[in-house]
C-alpha cells in the first residue's frame, strides 16, 4: 500500500493553503493523473502502446452526462451503464487489435484510427452530442457524508476532496492489480511476449484485460473532467488528449505506481507556474517533454529508483 500512503498528506493541502490556483492545478493533476495511471497499466505494465485512452476519456464524459439527462439517473448510477458501454467498446476494439496480433507501431496506429473514428462520430452526431459546440454540464455529482447527508459536490474544495479520493482509490486499485498474478502476467508479456505465451499465459486475454481496465479508468477520469469543468467537447477525445497522457507517464516514470501522477503534476502545473502566453506555454510543454525523454528516459520517479516498483 506504500504508494497510496504517499498521497494522504495531500489531504492537508487545503488546510495549509487557500490558493484557488494551487487547488485548481491540483484538481487537474488528480484527474489527469487518473488518466495517466490508466494508460500506465496498459503501456507501463503490459507493454502495449495503445492510443485509445483519449477516446475513452471523452466518451466517458459524454456517455455519463447523456445517460444522466436522458434517463434522469443520479450521477453515480449513470456511471454503471457508461462503464458497461466502455467495457463493450474496449473489448471490441481490443479484440480486433489483439486477435490480429498487432504490435508496437501498428497497434498504436490502429487504436489511434479507432480513436479518431470515435471522435468523428461524436463530432458529427449533432442531435445527441451537439457537435463542435459541445455540451454544457449543468449537473454536479452528489455524495453522502456522515452528518450532513447528501450534498452536491460544488466549489473548489469539494472537488479537491472528491478528485483526490478518486485518485487514491484508482491508485490502490492499480497497485492491487499490478502486484497480483495478473500484474505478473502483464510484466511477462511486456518483457517477452513469445516467452510468456510459451509459459502458458494466454497473452491475448491478458492484453485485452489490460486494455479494457485502462479504458474504463480513463473513462472515469473523463467523467470527473467533464463534470468539473462543466463542459464537454469533441476535442476531449482528440489525439492530443491521448498524447498528453503518454507524455505524463513517460515524464513521471512508466511502470511505477505514482510516476504518472508526478508527470501529470509537472505537465499541468509547470506551464501555469511560469507566466507564459499560450504559445510559449505550448512550446514549454514540448520542451519539457523532449528534455524528459532525452535526459531522464526512466522518468522522474526513475531517478529515485528506491521508489520504483520492481516487477
Amino acid at each position: 500500500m506504500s504508494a497510496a500512503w504517499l498521497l494522504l498528506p495531500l489531504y492537508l493541502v487545503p488546510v495549509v493553503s487557500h490558493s484557488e490556483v494551487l487547488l485548481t492545478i491540483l484538481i487537474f493533476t488528480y484527474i489527469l493523473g487518473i488518466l495517466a495511471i490508466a494508460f500506465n497499466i496498459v503501456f507501463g505494465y503490459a507493454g502495449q502502446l495503445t492510443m485509445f485512452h483519449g477516446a475513452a476519456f471523452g466518451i466517458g464524459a459524454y456517455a455519463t452526462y447523456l445517460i444522466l439527462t436522458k434517463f434522469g439517473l443520479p450521477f453515480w448510477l449513470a456511471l454503471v451503464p457508461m462503464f458497461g458501454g466502455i467495457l463493450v467498446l474496449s473489448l471490441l476494439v481490443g479484440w480486433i487489435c489483439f486477435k490480429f496480433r498487432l504490435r508496437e507501431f501498428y497497434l498504436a496506429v490502429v487504436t489511434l484510427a479507432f480513436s479518431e473514428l470515435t471522435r468523428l462520430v461524436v463530432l458529427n452526431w449533432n442531435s445527441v452530442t451537439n457537435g463542435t459546440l459541445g455540451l454544457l454540464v449543468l449537473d454536479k455529482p452528489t455524495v453522502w457524508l456522515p452528518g450532513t447527508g447528501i450534498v452536491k459536490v460544488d466549489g473548489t474544495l469539494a472537488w479537491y476532496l472528491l478528485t483526490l479520493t478518486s485518485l487514491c482509490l484508482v491508485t490502490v486499485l492499480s497497485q492491487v492489480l499490478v502486484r497480483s498474478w495478473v500484474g505478473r502476467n502483464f510484466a511477462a508479456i511486456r518483457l517477452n511476449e513469445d516467452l510468456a505465451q510459451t509459459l502458458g499465459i494466454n497473452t491475448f486475454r491478458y492484453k485485452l484485460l489490460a486494455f479494457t481496465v485502462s479504458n474504463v479508468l480513463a473513462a472515469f477520469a473523463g467523467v470527473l473532467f467533464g463534470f468539473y469543468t462543466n463542459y464537454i467537447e469533441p476535442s476531449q477525445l482528440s489525439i492530443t488528449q491521448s498524447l498528453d497522457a503518454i507524455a505524463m507517464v513517460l515524464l513521471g516514470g512508466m511502470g511505477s505506481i505514482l510516476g504518472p501522477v508526478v508527470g501529470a503534476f509537472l505537465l499541468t502545473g509547470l506551464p501555469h507556474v511560469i507566466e507564459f502566453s499560450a504559445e510559449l506555454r505550448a512550446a514549454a510543454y514540448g520542451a519539457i517533454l523532449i528534455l524528459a525523454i532525452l535526459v531522464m528516459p526512466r522518468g522522474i520517479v526513475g531517478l529515485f529508483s528506491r521508489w520504483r516498483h520492481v516487477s
Partner: protein
Amino acid sequence: MTQVILGQFLNGIIVGTLYGIIALGVTLTFGITGIVNFALGQFMMIGAYAAWHFTDITHLPYPVSVVLAVLVAGLAGFLSDRALFQFTRNNLVNGLLVSIGLISVIESGALLLYTATPKNMDFVLSGSWTVGAITISRMKVVTFGVLLAVIGLTWLALANTWLGRATRAYAQNPEAAMLMGVRTEMLQVGVSVYSCALAGMGGALYAGLYSLEPSMGALFILKGVEAAILAGVGNLAGALVGGIILGVTESIGSLFLPTAFRDAYGLVFLVAILLFRPSGLFGSQK
C-alpha cells in the same frame, strides 16, 4: 455525374501525391533511423510558410522560393536531428514522443512568428486547363508533376546509385552494411534531413494551392503515416500509391457519403488493410 466523379478522382490523385511525399519521408525515416517522425507534418508547415514568406514578403520568384523553402526545411531537419533525433535512433517510443514534443515547439514558433490567421499566397500560376468536360487548375497539375518527379527520382536514385544501394542495404541489415563500409551515422543524418526536406517541398507546393495555418501539419502527418502503412512500411513506390489511394478514397468517398466523415474513410480502409494484409498492400506476406 461522371464528370464530377472524374474531377474528384483527379483531385484525389493530386492531394494523394501530397500525402505520398510525406509518406515517403515517413517510410525512409522509419527504415533507416527506426523511428516515426511525427513532426514531419510540421516540417511541411515550415516549408509552406517559408515559401509563402519568400514569395509574398521578400518578393522572390516562386520557383526560387520553393528551392529556398526546401533548404530551410532541410536545415531545420538537420538541426532537429543533431539536437534530438540522434539520441532516439531505433527507439520507436522515445522517437515518437520527442517528435510530439517537437510538434508543440515548432507550432508555437509558427504561431508567434506568423499568428494563427490563415495566409493566402498570391496566385503564382493562375488559370486552368480544360480537357473535355473537366477543368483542372494549372497549379495543381504542376504540383502533381513536380511531386511525381521528386518521388520518381528518389526511387531511381535508391535503385541505381551507390548511396541508394547503401541505404537499402542498411535498411536490411545495419551491421552488414556497416562492415561493407557504409558510413551509417552519416547515412542516418542524411536520410533524416532528406525526409524533412521532402516534407518541406510538399509544404512549399501546398502553399501555392491552399491557405496556410500553423496547425496544418497535424492532418498531413496522419495521412502520411496512413499512406505509408497502407503501402507497407519500407516500400517507396508504394508510399506514393498509398497516398494516392488515400486521397482518391477520401474525395470519391465524400461524394457518396457524408463529407463530415471524410477523414474516416481512409481510417476504415487503413484498419481493414492492417488486419487482413498486415505488411501492407504491396508488402510481401510472411
